[in-house]
């Protein structure tokens, strides 16, 4: 017996006809939230809870697609498994996936047959580069059509967010940000303005000297990276909490091509001109890691860099 299609499905189908030639890579959420095969289920569960998602791709160490793990799998673990088991043992193997160059049509075909919640997206080298859901498609379409779509309460939070922590997924209101500074200068000579302003601010809030020093040094390096490498503007935010200071820096520039290399002491892509100014020793990211208690960095080529650093008070 054919099941009655729900409204969302009908709407997707109707609108999709207009946009069938659009490529999946223009719609997908990227970078995707993924776990590796070795990830313990207790962390998988936490990630789902914090990120408010109901499933995600499981990848191999080489970023190839291995499976997909969803809330349903987690429920099964409650019945008969252990949360110390690895994702690979409970995931659904050989999941249906899309290629980034596939069109919206492929999504519709897959969706017609299978009606899964989400599809992993891979690139030519078979690496997982995104995830696409029905909601992504709807969101994208309405944006294109120029409407503000009517979203439910659960999504509102995400849409109106100013700021989401990369470490914990916590979301902050604009008003919760204690310090903000726009890094909109391109001259290397200006490097340090944001860091010294933040230092003054933290001292005025009676943060201990040794903490202020660590924050300032790590921020200085991050600021230098934005000015020297991003080729774009950036912004610095700082939040003071009971037991820690958090610093976020974000730019919209060319991103980091090889993070492993960039984290190595002594590796630098800086030009000769930058080196004459005393920078480009290849110590920026290592120093940020050294002086912060926790650091998370997200970047991919041409998508900018987001860094979050946490310092215990």
């Amino acid at each position, binding site marked *: 017996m054919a099941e009655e299609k729900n409204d969302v499905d009908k709407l997707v189908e109707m609108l999709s006809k207009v946009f069938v030639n659009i490529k999946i890579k223009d719609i997908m959420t990227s970078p995707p939230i993924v776990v590796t095969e070795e990830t313990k289920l207790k962390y998988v569960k936490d990630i789902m809870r914090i990120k408010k998602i109901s499933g995600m791709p499981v990848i191999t160490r080489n970023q190839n697609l291995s499976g997909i793990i969803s809330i349903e799998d987690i429920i099964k673990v409650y019945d008969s498994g252990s949360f110390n088991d690895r994702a690979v043992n409970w995931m659904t193997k050989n999941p249906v996936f899309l290629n980034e160059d596939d069109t919206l049509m492929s999504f519709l075909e897959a969706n017609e047959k299978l009606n899964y919640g989400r599809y992993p997206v891979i690139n030519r080298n078979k690496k997982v580069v995104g995830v696409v859901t029905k909601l992504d498609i709807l969101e994208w379409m309405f944006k294109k059509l120029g409407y503000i779509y009517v979203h439910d309460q659960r999504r509102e939070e995400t849409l109106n967010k100013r700021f989401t922590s990369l470490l914990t997924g916590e979301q902050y209101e604009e008003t919760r940000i204690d310090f903000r500074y726009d890094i909109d200068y391109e001259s*290397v*000579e*200006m*490097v*340090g*303005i944001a*860091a*010294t302003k933040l*230092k003054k601010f933290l001292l005025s809030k009676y943060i201990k*000297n040794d903490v202020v*020093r660590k924050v*300032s*040094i790590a*921020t*200085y*390096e991050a600021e*230098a990276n934005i000015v020297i490498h991003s080729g774009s503007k950036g912004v610095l935010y700082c939040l003071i909490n009971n037991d820690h200071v958090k610093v976020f820096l974000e730019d919209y520039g060319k991103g980091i091509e090889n993070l492993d290399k960039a984290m190595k002491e002594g590796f630098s892509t800086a030009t000769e001109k930058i080196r004459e*100014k*005393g*920078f480009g*020793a*290849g*110590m*920026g990211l*290592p*120093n940020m890691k*050294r002086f912060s208690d926790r650091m998370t960095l997200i970047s991919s080529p041409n998508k900018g860099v987001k860094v979050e650093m946490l310092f215990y008070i």
Partner: protein
Amino acid sequence: MTFENVTKLLLAKTLFFPENFKDTEIEFAGASDLMSDFLAFSKENMLLITGLTSPQTITTAAVVGATGIIFVRGKEIPDNVVEVAQDLEIPVIVTDLSMYIACSVLYNNGIKDAMGTDRMIDKNG
């Protein structure tokens, strides 16, 4: 050692000196033209000895909490560098001595290493 003594020993000229540093005791110093070296390996209240005369030298000194900066080899210091020093209240002196000689003069007068990267050799030898 006070800043005044350092200035005398290095035959240096004062470019900017806030009065509240008059009695500050200087114990440690480090030398480099790479700002990342100071950022990675430094002590609070150290002296920065450098040939890099640009505003970032001052901001680097400010974030590591340095007591002051010594510019070596008698460089011409741009006005904007002095302005940043005034703004951030970092003492700045300039000497005609080379980096090597400036360092050895201070070392021989008891100023200790601030970078802590030379533990493989006996510094008392």
